[in-house]
């Protein structure tokens, strides 16, 4: 039943951690002046730096996000989690070999490059293969999933071409036949990678995340479909025509390649238009911090598009390539990646930390760091959550923090209990000894001050008492006290009471999107009659055998239509696994 085994991908944080380390390494090389894209002499270090950023940072980031979101979008969990564990390990190892290969490019031993590349391809293929069933599961296939599928197709093209180029570079025997791909093939490798794999996947993920967090319509309509088809078709045409042009000459191939690039550029322009439309159509007026910062990424994409168009028109594309790569890699992709990561990591951490407490009591309302910049320069959990627990509900998203003041009496907040501390009554020793504490309880109730509560510690939930106590003006509650119309609260001790209530958990999700009016419900459980099957007197079973709690009081029920019942994985020890038997109807108790 519990969520984290199904919906939360366990290895996503590992992907993100590796990706961020690679980002640091990939940026360190240019920062130290070792990598100069425009200088031929520093080509090999530049190549190493670019691959650290593309394979190490962006690819692992995308895979981590996909492992988390594809199952959620498809509504089903991945069959096995181990590919998600192997992928970052294999990719990092392969990447290390690749970087070493780049470093010694042109010398002996540079065969490390294709070897590393093969390892990277194998790891990514393993990851993609485990995602494919979930990708294809949901019908009709959502738009964002189509983008991801197109992106993965381009990933395949990119890595295959990259491996071919690496072999051509480093293996002399193959260099003769494959040498025709060099050096222009590198350009198509970049095209398929940056425009195809990264950009299409980023578009797909953004179409999922932006509407979710900004409360904008998920359905992108004809514009979204146009972006998909123009982008995929355009870049594919440009790629295929370009490669074909390297192998065979043909003027029409050059024209096809230009047309493909133009279509791809148009797709990007339409995407930027659609993003503007999305931001305008959002229902949530206050844009969260990370989405505001994400606007910079979209600006970089627009700038890159303009620069590419100008370069193509003036015929100076090759000189503009280093600038374009920087704009796309660092401005658009890294910008989008980091800003969304800002929210994703906080969100997943919140779910991991507080998800299990939902429904038990107050939880911090705000995922930290999603508020105004002034308040979030050095966010601390204390300041972020002080005014934002679910009991208070006073802070608006995006507003600067106000000092915490308990609200007057908001309608959704529970009224506090009375000032007098509740009377604590521990009847557990008496129950364990086989006694009958009813008289003591009634005496204690008679002695309660007006407005005072009674806290009862028992070995089982005293359901029969509720009827009696309600007639005396007490309303039973098992947790947060509540001053209702009926008077003072009663608190059976939480741990033992809950263990023995045998609450029947029943849950079924409607995957077919069943409509409310015709929701089929599980057949109701027949109410158990008070008589036990074996005729034992319920009164005697108040004295449970040591260690068994009140299970002797419980009658096995008919098989319930449970879809899944389970417990948390070791987090809440008093929630046992397996099916629970419901408490029987309490026997009539003499008042």
């Amino acid at each position, binding site marked *: 039943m519990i969520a984290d085994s199904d919906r939360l991908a366990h290895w996503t944080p590992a992907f993100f951690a590796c990706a961020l380390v690679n980002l640091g390494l990939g940026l360190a090389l240019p920062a130290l002046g070792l990598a100069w894209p425009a200088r031929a002499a520093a080509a090999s270090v530049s190549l190493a730096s670019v691959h650290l950023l593309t394979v190490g940072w962006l690819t692992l980031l995308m895979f981590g996000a996909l492992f988390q979101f594809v199952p959620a979008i498809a509504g089903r969990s991945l069959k096995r989690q181990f590919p998600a564990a192997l992928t970052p390990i294999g990719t990092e190892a392969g990447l290390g070999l690749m970087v070493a290969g780049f470093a010694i490019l042109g010398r002996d031993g540079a065969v490390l490059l294709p070897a590393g590349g093969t390892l990277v391809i194998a790891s990514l293929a393993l990851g993609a293969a485990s995602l494919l069933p979930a990708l294809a599961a949901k019908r009709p296939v959502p738009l964002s999933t189509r983008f991801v599928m197109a992106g993965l197709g381009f990933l395949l093209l990119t890595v295959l071409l990259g491996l071919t180029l690496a072999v051509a570079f480093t293996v002399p025997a193959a260099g003769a036949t494959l040498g025709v791909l060099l050096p222009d093939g590198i350009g198509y490798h970049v095209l398929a990678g940056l425009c195809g794999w990264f950009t299409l996947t980023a578009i797909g993920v953004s179409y999922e995340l932006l509407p979710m967090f900004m409360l904008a319509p998920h359905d992108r309509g004809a514009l979204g479909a146009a972006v998909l088809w123009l982008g995929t078709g355009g870049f594919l045409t440009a790629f295929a025509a370009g490669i074909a042009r390297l192998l065979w000459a043909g003027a029409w191939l050059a024209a096809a390649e230009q047309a493909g690039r133009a279509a791809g550029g148009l797709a990007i322009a339409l995407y930027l238009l659609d993003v503007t439309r999305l931001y305008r159509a959002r229902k949530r007026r206050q844009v969260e911090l990370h989405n505001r910062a994400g606007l910079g990424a979209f600006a970089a994409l627009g700038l890159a598009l303009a620069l590419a168009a100008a370069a193509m028109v003036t015929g100076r594309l090759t000189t503009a390539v280093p600038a374009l790569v920087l704009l796309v890699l660092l401005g658009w992709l890294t910008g989008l990646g980091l800003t969304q990561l800002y929210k994703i990591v906080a969100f997943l951490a919140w779910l991991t930390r507080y998800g299990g407490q939902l429904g*038990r009591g107050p939880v911090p309302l705000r995922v930290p760091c999603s508020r105004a910049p002034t308040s979030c320069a050095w966010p601390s959990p204390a300041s972020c959550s002080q005014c934002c627990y679910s009991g208070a509900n006073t802070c608006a998203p995006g507003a600067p923090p106000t000092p915490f003041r308990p609200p007057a009496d908001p309608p959704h907040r529970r009224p506090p209990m009375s000032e007098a501390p509740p009377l604590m009554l521990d009847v557990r020793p008496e129950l364990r000894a086989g006694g009958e504490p009813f008289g003591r309880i009634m005496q204690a109730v008679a002695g309660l001050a007006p407005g005072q509560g009674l806290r009862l510690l028992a070995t089982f939930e005293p359901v029969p008492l509720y009827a009696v106590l309600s007639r005396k003006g007490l309303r039973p509650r098992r947790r947060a006290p509540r001053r209702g119309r009926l008077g003072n609260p009663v608190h059976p001790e939480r741990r033992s009471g809950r263990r023995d209530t045998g609450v029947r958990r029943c849950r079924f999700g409607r995957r077919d999107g069943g409509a409310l009016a015709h929701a089929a419900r599980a057949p109701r459980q027949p109410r158990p009659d008070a008589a036990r099957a074996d005729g034992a007197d319920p009164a005697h079973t108040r004295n449970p055998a040591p260690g068994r709690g009140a299970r002797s009081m419980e009658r096995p029920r008919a098989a319930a239509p449970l879809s899944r019942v389970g417990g948390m994985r070791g987090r809440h020890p008093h929630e046992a696994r397996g099916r629970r038997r419901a408490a029987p109807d309490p026997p009539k108790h003499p008042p």
Partner: protein
Amino acid sequence: MATTALPDDAELREALREALRDVIDPELGYNIVDLELVYDIAAEGGIVDVTMTMTTPGCTAQDYIVAGVERCLAEEAGVTGVCVNVVWSPAWSPRRMSARARSVFNIREDGA
């Protein structure tokens, strides 16, 4: 006749609805009742049936919210079983939010 001290059904439904205010949607940071995610609560003989939806179909927090609802209602006295039914129709939209939630989120009132 009633073996538990609970008031009649309407009061009970109201009480359960109040209790569900402790369950929040992590994506938006507001309780599910004021977001109008809970369509129906029916209680009969200690078994509570909750019909609800999520803000998005691919909600990562879906299982957490459902588990939270189950936990929250199971704590109520007299409740012996909780059934949560997640439906996708009628679809949730920000217009459905309660007035208070709408003001907190500055939901735009215009059009769709």
